């Protein structure tokens, strides 16, 4: 029977020398869920994500992604992940189409699918010179849509958004999130890290990480009730006992 979980983490630990970056965490994310992952710098978020994406080997513990063992099937796992961050997703000195071609090649995307995706992007941005301008010349909001489409070019079931909206204004962010919900409705699982509590409110469920441990997990409404506060900012600061 197919499992309903997109991601299962069991007793995951990562030590660097004597320092425990990730300390025995367990977590389940359901298919189609928009799951938030919050924490201050140094809390262990990035280390956790790198282990989930098979970029870093755990000291101990198990991770299962889309039914695959990350430890035993790392290359298959990588093909099922889309990863987008504001900083590193795109080559600024390539054209938008060249970026799409590059990622298509890496992920063995069929030429027809690539052509279709190019058309979709041109229609979405209402631009006809995407083979002709450099990515760095696009406005930030457009870059972000290009990044999202490129991240999805191999149709991965799980999408990681690592501070993907940093620096984007409220209107652009709202449009971006409308797309995220569409993806979620289409069955994709979206794993989001953000420093902004406006965005934490948008997630179906979230975990808060502090000093290598997951200290809280729940829906935004549940967590606000639990701490008897009205904002996720207050939830966050109380959860990490700031």
């Amino acid at each position: 029977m197919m499992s309903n979980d997109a991601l299962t983490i069991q007793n995951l630990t990562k030590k660097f020398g004597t320092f425990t970056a990730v300390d025995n965490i367990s977590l389940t994310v359901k298919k189609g869920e928009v799951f938030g992952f919050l924490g201050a710098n140094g809390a262990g978020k990035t280390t956790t994500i790198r282990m989930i994406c098979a970029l870093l080997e755990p000291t101990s513990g198990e991770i299962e992604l889309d039914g695959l063992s990350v430890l035993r099937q790392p290359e298959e796992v990588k093909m099922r992940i889309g990863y987008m961050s504001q900083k590193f997703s795109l080559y600024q000195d390539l054209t938008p189409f060249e970026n799409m071609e590059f990622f298509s090649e890496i992920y063995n995307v069929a030429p027809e699918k690539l052509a279709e995706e190019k058309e979709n992007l041109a229609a979405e941005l209402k631009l006809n010179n995407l083979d002709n301008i450099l990515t760095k010349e696009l406005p930030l909001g457009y870059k972000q849509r290009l990044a999202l489409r490129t991240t999805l070019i191999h149709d991965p079931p799980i999408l990681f958004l690592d501070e993907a909206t940093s620096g984007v204004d409220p209107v652009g962010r709202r449009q971006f999130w409308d797309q995220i919900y569409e993806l979620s409705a289409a069955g994709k699982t979206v794993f989001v890290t953000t420093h902004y509590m406006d965005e934490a409110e948008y997630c179906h469920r979230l975990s808060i990480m502090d000093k290598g441990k997951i200290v809280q997990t729940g829906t935004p409404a549940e967590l606000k009730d639990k701490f008897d506060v009205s904002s996720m900012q207050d939830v966050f600061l109380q959860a990490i006992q700031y």
Partner: protein
Amino acid sequence: MSEKIIQLKNIAKRYDNIMALDHVSVSIPHSAIIGFIGPDGAGKSTLMKIILTLETADEGEGTVLGNSIETKKRAIRRHIGYMPEIFSLYTDLSVEENLKFFFQIYKIPKSQYKEKMEMLYGFNRLENFKTTLAGHLSGGMKQKLALSCALMHDPKILVLDEPTTGVDPVSRAEFWKMLNQLKSEGKTVLISTPYLDEAMQCDYIYLFHQGKILKQGLPDQIISEYEIPFYQIETRDPIPAMKKLQRSQLHARFYLIGDTIHCAMLTKAEPSVLEMKKIAGNEITIKKITPTLEDIFLDLLERPGEINDVK
């Protein structure tokens, strides 16, 4: 001196064909944290630069600390500290070297160096990182250092252009603590941010859009006085329900927040619950909610022509 520290009237600024500021007026008191909120290109940074006298307005007039923004630029600059959007310290100088550089360009008497450094380190808690290169600091520490440099000449007004973009929540909380401390010392802080959770922490905010000020006030008051009713709709399968509602003839806008549907009415009228149930299914539950500042801001943008009708 007037009791307002910054007073600007009908300021307009054009770049080529773009109206960056379309006749805006602001009146800013002492000892307060004032938020300029809005999307990119809304005019926040341009207005900040006019206050800083780095840009000159095409139209309008104003004073900062009683000095005309047109004729008394030097006097104004002496009393303003500025932290631009892009980190602008020397990344290959240490923390202390950066502070020393600002100490020297502001020509503060050498005899005050020790005292000044003690005061700033007490404020930014970066003393243990004195010899660290600024480029090696974390995002949050960079911001604290930049803020300290902007405070070097003890300005009465601080202008901070999106200082917390990309900074983690703990560092942001610390940064805001520092801003509140500056306020309690009598300084006025102007801060721009695209984040509405930060807007809530300001004493007074201006919401900018396309060169105009859409709304201004105390954040809580803007929320409590907003006349458009908002509802939250819960149902097991929210997306199909939302699509049905969006396609319906109901006078409302529907959008998703997490797994609930938010509904903003287009007029002050209450919605017909019966009608909604007919469209989206009987099992939905509908309750009135207090909108967040973000709900309101996005709502205002959806109805630019009707703002006066709304209030």
